[in-house]
């Protein structure tokens, strides 16, 4: 069970979800979902289409409010009622569409909505230095100039900028929605390396992905949703491809009973 595992790890998970229910009208999207996101670990969230991955992510990001259940942040119960609440707690989400303005440059995108001012005017130099520092600390070094418009970046670079934007604000939890979905092999590697660096910084990272290759490559823990229920959650070593696919498609597995929290 997840609680037992946390106890074994000797630390309260940074973000803890317990019994999250969410329905939209007659459609029940999540049934009593439990999930732990420990600091310094990458949690891979898998599930087929319609399993509830996006809804769960949005509940953490504050876009949706759960109908029942409780979210604990650093052990205390919290209510996340919007993106701003999430940002204040240090929870940042990188959506699949990245939410970058193509016509703005890297610095402008990274500081969008949180520009630094000096005498009421934009303090470009200070923002440029801070952006450069964040990028270099994440070893995003393939961009030639942080003053180039985002439109001129490759897919992997755009993803990197979006991630850097998310971690710039003293964030503690980063949710990445399908970070490699549109990327080629080299670009995917670049982004997965970046995910590992976030973990090494001590952030709690959740990667939502269809791509089991990516999940197995980068995740320390794996959580599988099936039709709105958390059917398995545990250290990545408890899973193999076969069992994960079975969890994702049928909600159960005859092979690795140890990992599952059990349906319902």
């Amino acid at each position, binding site marked *: 069970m997840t609680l037992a595992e946390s106890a074994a790890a000797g630390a309260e998970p940074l973000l803890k979800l317990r019994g999250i229910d969410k329905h939209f009208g007659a459609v029940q999207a999540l049934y009593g979902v439990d999930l732990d996101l420990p600091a310094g670990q990458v949690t891979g969230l898998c599930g087929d289409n319609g399993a509830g991955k996006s809804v769960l992510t949005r509940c953490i990001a504050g876009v949706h409010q759960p109908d029942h259940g409780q979210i604990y942040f650093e052990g205390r119960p919290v209510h996340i009622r919007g993106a701003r609440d999430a940002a204040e707690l240090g929870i940042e989400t990188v959506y699949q569409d990245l939410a970058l303005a193509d016509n703005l440059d890297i610095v402008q995108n990274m500081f969008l909505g949180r520009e630094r001012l000096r005498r009421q005017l934009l303090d470009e130099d200070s923002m440029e*230095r801070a952006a450069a520092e964040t990028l270099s600390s994440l070893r995003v070094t393939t*961009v030639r100039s942080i003053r180039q418009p985002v439109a001129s970046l490759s897919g992997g670079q755009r993803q990197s900028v979006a991630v850097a934007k998310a971690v*710039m604000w003293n964030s503690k939890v980063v949710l990445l929605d399908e970070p490699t979905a549109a990327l080629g092999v080299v670009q995917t590697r670049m982004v997965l390396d970046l995910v590992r660096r976030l973990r090494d910084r001590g952030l709690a990272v959740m990667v939502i992905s269809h791509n089991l290759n990516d999940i197995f490559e980068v995740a320390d823990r794996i959580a599988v949703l099936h039709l709105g229920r958390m059917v398995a959650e545990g250290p990545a070593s408890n899973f193999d491809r076969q069992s994960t696919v079975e969890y994702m498609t049928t909600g159960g597995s005859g092979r690795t009973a140890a990992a599952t929290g059990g349906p319902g």
Partner: protein
Amino acid sequence: MARIENEPVAPAEAVDLTAAVDAGAEVPPEILAQSLGEYLRGWWVRVRSGDSGVLPVIVGLVAVAVIFETTTPENAFLRPSNLVYLFQESTIYMVLAMAEIFILLLGEIDLSIGYVALFGGVVTWKLVQTPSPAWPWWAAIPVALFFCGVVGAVQGTLVSRLKIPSFVVTLGGLLLFRGIVVIILGGADGLFSISPSVPNQAVIYNLVQANLDPTVSWIVMAAAVVAVGGGLWMRAASRRRGGLVAPPRSVVALRIVLLAAVGIAVVAICDVNRGVAITIDGVPWVVPIVLGVLALWTLLLQRTRYGRYVYAIGGNPEAARRAGVKVAAIRTWAFVLSAVTAGFAGILLGSFFYGQYSTNLADGSQLVLYAVAASVIGGTSLFGGRGKTIHGVLGGLVIGGIVYGMALLGLQVEWELIVTGSVLVLAVLIDVLSRRGAGAGGGERV
């Protein structure tokens, strides 16, 4: 909040900007240039790849000058007297284009600004009429501009809060204000005039008609060049000191020299005596006034949060919304600022036509198309997020040149419409093609 800024700041060189260039990523080459030669080469690469910047407008200006100089009787187009008249006329298109650019940057369009301009003008004229209400000019102009701002707020609210397409709202506004202007004028044959012999009215009359003393013209120009050029130089120097990438000194120097050359040319042209019986010389008031509008709106759009959000909304409204930008408020304010700017253009328009405001002074629907054409020719995109205030000034000069050149040729209005319409479509074509070029490259990499 323990942000990055509290940690020791690594020098910017820590980012290896030249390492491992990602395949297919095109960087605007001029960002990286370290010398004048590299800069020019970079610029040329950029032009060839479709991001032409101000090149079309410069080509357009030269083409307009050459075509009309060679075709007008007695090669009159480039005579100082005609050029000054051209500057005066163009300032109206410039200010209108600067008004339209606020809206175009959002990816919207405002078709009403032509008649909003006439509305602003006619309200001003009405308020300074003698014997009543005979308001002082310094009250009449702000009040007229305030009404324009209210108009902009209403239209902006309809667009940004009620999500009615701006095209429809402002098309309605175009007709509405056309009607209102006629009502204020007191009927289709109504006429307000102001006279330079009434001191209060003279201030408004003189906006376009009066000139600075030739000596003062030189001083003002020199002060402006020193201020702008000094600003460019100091800024580059401060970035270089801070370890940030800055354009090479030679490029900054070249820019300042070009700026000074344009300033000297304009003042030299304006200081030639263009009077027949009496001496008329000096730079028209309106030239520094328009440059002041340019400076103000450039500061707002390039150096403030508000301006940054306008660009962000034009580029990706959803990204702006998620970043916490109050998208609807920013949009509404853009319509307000646009309408106020347009109203000011309307005041200049009345002054340009020697203080006579009538219903057939100008066609507001034509004015708005000129404004859009000027913006787009200047390099502002119709699709939002790309463009600068300076584009309105450059494009306004091209449109002014075309309109005035055809008037010199004695062409009828129908030809003016045909030529200007063609120029508008051509400019949009360039915009679309350059966007497609950028989009195709970008699309593959997403």
